[in-house]
């Protein structure tokens, strides 16, 4: 029998192969006693092999691993914190941003509103007094402007200046005649 055919018989005996292969091998073993003997032999072994199950991993190995893991997790707390703060700038930036927002919100939003110290009537009186004071100041400014314009500039500056210029002019004219 060809090696290829034997391999196919073994494959089918172990439950493998395509549907076509299975049909072909079934036909072959029904006609060929040698093929049937090979098939039966391997099929029996395959059946025993397929009854084998996974071995259970001893509990102590698993519990040792879990307890090691818990120790490592405890020891890693500060290392994780360090990594979080210094090796991942994005996290640090995010934490800083959140902290800043919280501080600013606390200052501006939670700040207690000052209670009003004056009654509306007092505020109205004060307002009136401020307006009067401003009116007085305004009046003083206007008066000062008029004084400067009419008294200081006209009488104290323009007139003596004109007088002086006229004297100079007369002297020059007299000098020219002589």
């Amino acid at each position, binding site marked *: 029998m060809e090696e290829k055919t034997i391999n196919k018989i*073994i494959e089918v005996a172990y439950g493998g192969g395509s549907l076509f292969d299975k049909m072909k091998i079934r036909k072959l073993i029904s006609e060929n006693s040698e093929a049937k003997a090979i098939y039966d032999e*391997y099929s029996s072994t395959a059946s025993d092999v397929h*009854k084998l199950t*996974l071995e259970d*991993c*001893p509990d102590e190995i698993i519990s040792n*691993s879990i307890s090691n893991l818990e120790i490592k997790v405890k020891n890693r707390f500060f290392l994780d914190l360090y990594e979080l703060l210094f090796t991942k700038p994005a996290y640090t930036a995010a934490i800083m941003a959140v902290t800043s927002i919280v501080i600013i919100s606390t200052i501006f939003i939670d700040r207690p509103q000052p209670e009003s110290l004056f009654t509306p009537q007092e505020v109205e009186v004060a307002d009136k007094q401020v307006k009067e004071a401003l009116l007085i100041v305004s009046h003083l400014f206007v008066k000062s402007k008029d004084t400067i314009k009419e008294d200081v500039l006209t009488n104290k500056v323009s007139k003596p200046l004109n007088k002086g210029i006229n004297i100079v002019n007369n002297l020059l004219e007299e000098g020219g005649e002589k």
Partner: protein
Amino acid sequence: MNKEIKYKFLIKQYSNIVYTYALYMMKDKMDADDVTQEVLIKIWDKENSFNILKAKSWIMRTTHNLCIDYLRRRSISYSREISISEEFDDMYNLSDEQNEPESQTHVKFMSEKIKKEIQKLPENLKSVFVLYEINGFKYREISKTLGIPVNSVKVYLMRARKKLQEQLKNYEAQEVL
């Protein structure tokens, strides 16, 4: 916290597969225990370096590599005497007196015989055979785990089946004698 959940999930999912593979490869319970423990530690240490979807092949590749390392070390200085068969014997003896004693005893006897013969297979054939027939891996998964082409996996599997059959024949011949 997320890492712990992932780790516990991986342990629950793969510890038996790892242990079974190690037991068949090492033929020694103590070595299998050591390999399994080491694999579980490696899973924790390297958990971030592999995708959970590819965990199966990563874990089995690690297990296979560790088994090979242990076998090499053992070939240099081998001193232990406890064999996998003794481990299996112990397990059968412990639970031998349960219901349906005759059929159970027969099944256990056959299983023991098969296990003993599987562990006698050459390493390259045994790794493929155990992964395919006992751990239920597919050709492609075995190929990724062992780093060999899919066609080689098929060839090794066929050789392993033939070799196992041959060994069982010899075993039966010896039993008759």
